[in-house]
């Protein structure tokens, strides 16, 4: 689907990296969910898992944040398509599990932005899917 975005290059990076991932890592659930439209969709493509609608996305993040003591996303490489309201980032995710062990993933997210929020998000993961 093609959407109309109101964000420029800097705005797309601010939304995806600073507002979204910054809030995920800070476990600020309301700020994370505020990045999404009410009818947004997250697809973990490598696991064929789909979360549709803000409430289902919120439930997924409650579980994800509750399952990990520490969440770190870093080492971002961004590809920004300002004219089409799309941004992609590859990154490292480091997740501290309840038993103190760490899970490290090399992931890529694709975001499609409508106006100034996420309409569709696609996640490709290097390992097992923790976003269930």
């Amino acid at each position, binding site marked *: 689907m093609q959407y109309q975005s109101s964000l420029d290059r800097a705005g797309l990076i601010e939304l995806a990296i600073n507002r979204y991932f910054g809030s995920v890592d800070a476990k600020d659930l309301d700020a994370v969910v505020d990045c999404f439209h009410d009818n947004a969709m997250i697809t973990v493509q490598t696991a064929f898992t789909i979360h549709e609608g803000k409430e289902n996305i919120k439930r997924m993040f409650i579980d994800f944040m509750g399952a990990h003591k520490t969440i770190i996303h870093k080492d971002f490489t961004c590809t920004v398509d300002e004219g089409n309201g799309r941004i992609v980032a590859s990154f490292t995710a480091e997740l501290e599990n309840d038993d103190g062990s760490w899970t490290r993933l090399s992931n890529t997210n694709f975001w499609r932005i409508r106006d100034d929020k996420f309409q569709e998000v696609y996640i*490709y993961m290097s390992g097992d899917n923790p976003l269930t």
Partner: protein
Amino acid sequence: MTDKPYDYYIDFVTKRYFHGVDNYDMNMVLDCFHEDATLTEVTSMTVHEGRDAGIKTMFEGFLGAHSRVWHGNFVHTCDTKEASVCSQFSVEVTPHGESEPLRYENCNRFYIKDGKFSSVFIYMSGENLLK
């Protein structure tokens, strides 16, 4: 800003690289890569190094194992400032001796220098076919 326009990157990925793969044109495919390029299948962390070494060997194995290969349903995220294209797409491959294709929903990240791939990263939705 690089010296290549937006449509160069899209056409290079679709009309040269994927066209070459789908038509079993090994020369067209390999010509898309720099000699020292790398291709990494991230979901299994398999790294193929060198256009005429690891990458060529991988494509010989991949194309040799399938009677039909098709890439389509593309959505591209193209950044002319960073000379990179990230593409989501469907893949259908039919193994030799089989009648029904296997379907995957994959993505590639292409990083381009002087008009050709310097590094490519692939995520696959199922088993890694690019061994």
